[in-house]
């Protein structure tokens, strides 16, 4: 069972903002500045709610999710996309089942905390045979 959050964003300001919000709600946050760092954290055992920026250099959010899935690292995680844009483009096709939510920056602290707490509740639920 996990109660952790990971922010994946190349923008230090966004990572810092999410850090402050999570700290105020006593949520355990880890930060990754790139898709590659996100994968490293997952390979090291992170499981929880992943807040994933879409527009990142080298490995964007969609590519990172495809890597998460292909490496078998998705189970036990919930993925929420973060974007400064409007609605997603066709890069999301085929990934709908893995993306639980889609939040447009800037987002309010209350909205983020409420969403994260619900997703953490979902992750804390396990089947008897899990």
């Amino acid at each position, binding site marked *: 069972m996990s109660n952790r959050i990971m922010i994946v964003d190349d923008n230090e300001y966004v990572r810092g903002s999410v850090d402050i919000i999570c700290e105020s709600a006593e949520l355990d946050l880890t930060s990754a500045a790139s898709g590659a760092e996100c994968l490293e954290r997952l390979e090291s055992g992170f499981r929880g709610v992943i807040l994933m920026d879409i527009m990142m250099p080298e490995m964007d959010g969609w590519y990172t999710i495809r890597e998460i899935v292909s490496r078998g690292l998705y189970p036990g995680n919930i993925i929420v996309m973060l974007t400064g844009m409007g609605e*997603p483009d066709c890069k999301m*096709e085929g990934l*709908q*089942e893995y993306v639980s*939510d*889609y939040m447009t920056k800037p987002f309010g602290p209350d909205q983020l905390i409420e969403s994260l707490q619900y997703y953490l509740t*979902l992750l804390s639920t396990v089947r008897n045979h899990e």
Partner: protein
Amino acid sequence: MSRNNLVVIGVSTGGPLTLKALFAGLPPLNAAFLVVLHITPQMDYRIAQGLAGVASMPVVLAQDGQYLRRGNIYLAPGGFHLKLDGNQRVVLCEGARVNYVQPAVDVTMLSLTRQLSGAMIGIVLTGMGKDGAEGIRHIKQMGGVTMAQDQQSSTIYGMPKAAVQTGAVDFVLPPNRIAGKLVELLEAIT
């Protein structure tokens, strides 16, 4: 109204919180609710349990061969398409993705036939893509009532927009008003 009322809801990204808001506002109603959310097998049970925590009606993962009963909410499991035989019996099918997803809303809605008695209601909520649009058109052709989530309240307006663009949607509403419309259309179970 007859006891064979059926409500089929299609939803994708933004779905967990939208479904939570919708079902938290619904009293027990005289209909079977079938939810098709684009979801993986790793998450389906968790979503069902999350909904069960807020809904006034029991929530279960739909099982192959199961008959839908009024006053219950069924979530289509991940990894399968779900069809309804005779609008009542669950048939889980393997096979290719439809609209890039599995379960696909269109597969479920297109399996419906004209209700001999009772109401049939189709709803498309937030999500990327166009899954559910053909299904909504079909439900309208089968004499059903159709709804789509409005743009302002949608996390992603793709699926509701595609449904609305078919011209077959009766009501375009936010989740709380969809709940109100369902209460208006269906009898409460006391």
